[in-house]
């Protein structure tokens, strides 16, 4: 089996002492930040991104992936114990998980979440190993029009899955695209929107943008509206194991969630958020005792937690094979890869197999560490919830500043970060969600290049996007998605799903 050979290569690369240590640090730090109420994976990744810079590419990516899983897991912990989702994909976990906690089953809910995630992580890893190479073969068939249509679909999906107003989300994507174009035009060599500032020649730097929009704005948001103090529900470690009955209900849900999540994760625009909502809906539909839902049904924890973890894994597939991030979290991962000098895409797998397979293997290792190390450390994470915010935020701010400074000692970087903090603040006041902007920002130059190539090929005829079967299929999918939004019933579901408490 070729797949196992590849995986073996990966494990050899990932299991070096150095990489294991970085994976562990990533998982721990990710949990540490992710556990803080209101901080989801995007700000967590942004805040911790700088500490990976000094590392070699594989270690850096392994650590980033570890941070991502850690952040997700930390988010579930907060959801269950304090009923405060740190991220959209934990919203669902809040519903049933917190109810379970109230009934004294917090330990069981946490263990179920961790075990379901681990199971999904294992399947997701195999899925990635099996489908990665296949998709990268498909990717070789992709031409410029196909890439362009794929990005259109991805951006439309990002809009659908964003919080709040659709039109505003579209505008955010477009503003992101525009910001992504700042700098030197690769085709003509002319600079665009640089105002004669040297620091903008190579485009707006990713890190000050993300840290400003997410890290610093998040602090300001919490200072302006201090989150109501909610005491976490205390849990004893020996209550951790699910009962036999709970286990019997949970495992089929975890299996269904894993399947659903693995598939939804690959889709453009898919990912953890979509998967967890879908899984919750499915569990609620097929249960024989619908009255249990909303009152702490364990399937409602196992299913969505498995789904979001599986999707988190498989959403690496489009990034690693096509070089296109399918959601804002992946956009940050792509930013991290580019900073490391790796252009994500099918070439990574052939040119640097140890990097691709090492990352795949490290995902499994990271998931294992989450269960083996994090679960027993639960007490510490819960303690962390009681650290007052007045201590936390100056430290987070300092990390943002040191992070930016350690990538570039140019004072201009700090200016950029300040500008994006102010911009992010204005966006917050006007009710605009910045996540789609990041996706647009990363895709801007790619989209322009592929649009230009396509139209040059077709001598300016836009029909080229419909003549190519792959591209046409993707555009039809895009239309379907748009039709779904216009369709009132779905629209209502979306509004309910994204209502903030």
């Amino acid at each position, binding site marked *: 089996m070729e797949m196992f050979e590849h995986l073996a290569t990966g494990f050899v690369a990932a299991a070096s002492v150095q990489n294991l240590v970085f994976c562990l640090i990533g998982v721990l730090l990710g949990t540490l930040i992710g556990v803080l109420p209101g901080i989801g994976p995007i700000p967590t990744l942004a805040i911790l991104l700088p*500490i990976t*810079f*000094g590392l070699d590419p594989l270690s850096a990516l392994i650590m980033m992936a570890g941070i991502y899983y850690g952040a997700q897991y930390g988010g579930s912990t907060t959801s269950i114990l304090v009923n405060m989702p740190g991220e959209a994909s934990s919203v669902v976990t809040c519903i049933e998980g917190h109810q379970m906690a109230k009934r004294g089953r917090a330990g069981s809910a946490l263990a179920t979440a961790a075990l379901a995630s681990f199971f999904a992580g294992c399947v997701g890893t195999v899925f990635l190993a099996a489908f990665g190479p296949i998709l990268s073969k498909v990717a070789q068939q992709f031409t410029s029009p196909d890439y362009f249509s794929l990005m259109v679909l991805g951006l439309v999906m990002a809009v659908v899955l964003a919080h709040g*107003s659709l*039109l*505003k989300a*579209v*505008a955010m994507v*477009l*503003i992101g*695209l*525009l910001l992504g*174009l700042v700098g030197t*035009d690769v*085709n*003509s060599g*002319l600079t*665009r*929107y640089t105002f004669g500032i040297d620091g903008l020649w190579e485009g707006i730097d990713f890190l000050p943008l993300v840290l400003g929009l997410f890290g*610093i704005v998040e*602090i*300001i948001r919490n*200072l*302006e*509206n201090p989150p109501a103090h909610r005491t976490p529900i205390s849990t004893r470690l020996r209550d951790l194991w699910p009962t036999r009955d709970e286990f019997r209900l949970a495992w089929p849900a975890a299996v269904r969630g894993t399947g659903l999540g693995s598939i939804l994760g690959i889709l453009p625009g898919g990912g953890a958020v979509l998967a967890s909502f879908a899984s919750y809906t499915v569990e609620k539909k097929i249960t024989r005792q619908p009255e249990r839902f909303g009152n702490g049904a364990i399937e409602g924890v196992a299913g969505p937690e498995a789904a979001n973890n599986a999707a988190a894994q498989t959403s690496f597939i489009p990034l690693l094979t096509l070089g296109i991030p399918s959601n804002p979290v992946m956009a940050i991962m792509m930013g991290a890869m580019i900073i490391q000098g790796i252009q994500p895409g099918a070439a990574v797998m052939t040119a640097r197999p140890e990097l691709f397979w090492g990352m795949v293997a490290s995902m499994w290792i990271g998931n294992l560490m989450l269960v083996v190390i994090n679960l027993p450390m639960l007490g510490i994470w819960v303690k962390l919830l009681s650290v007052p915010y*007045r*201590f936390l*935020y*100056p*430290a987070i*701010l*300092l*990390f943002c*500043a*040191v992070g930016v*400074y*350690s990538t570039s*000692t140019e*004072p201009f970087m*700090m*200016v950029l*970060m*300040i500008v994006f*903090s*102010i911009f992010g603040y*204005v966006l917050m*006041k*006007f*009710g*605009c969600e910045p996540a789609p902007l990041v996706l647009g920002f990363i895709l801007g130059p790619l*989209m*322009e290049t592929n*649009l*230009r190539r396509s*139209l*040059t090929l077709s*001598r*300016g*005829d*836009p029909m080229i996007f419909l003549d190519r079967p792959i591209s046409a299929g993707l555009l039809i999918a895009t239309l379907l998605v748009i039709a779904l939004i216009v369709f009132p019933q779905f629209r209502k579901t979306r509004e309910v799903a994204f209502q903030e408490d």
Partner: protein
Amino acid sequence: MLKVKSPQDLGAGIMFLLIGLAGIVLGRDLDFGSARNMGPGYFPLLISGFIVLIGAVVAGRSFTLEGPAIERLQLRPILMLLVALAVFSFLIKEIGVVLTSILMMVVAAYARPNVNIVETVIFAICVATFVAVVFVFGLNQPMPLWWNG
């Protein structure tokens, strides 16, 4: 008399209009080219145009669709945080990462009312030590530890 029903949308709409217009005005010297041979101005102007369009719709809609009010601006948090960032970028080259970090965190602490200065300074010293150890010794980042570089 037109009545603003959704102040957030009006604000967002105007902001989109301004950004889109800025994209068009600042990019007016870029060669537009044609679909067949896209110039450097083609894609940016296309996008800016769409942003203006959406800005107009969102702003217009704010007179008909009910929406949330804009939350009150609180100047203290954002100002102090930005001052803290400025302090960091001005001082790091001069007095090194340890003192800069402490100063920055003390300034940042004043983003909230009722600061306990003793507690803040002690905590800032701990975090600054941690940052120095991790970033300067652990990750070998190029930043001076003290003022003598």
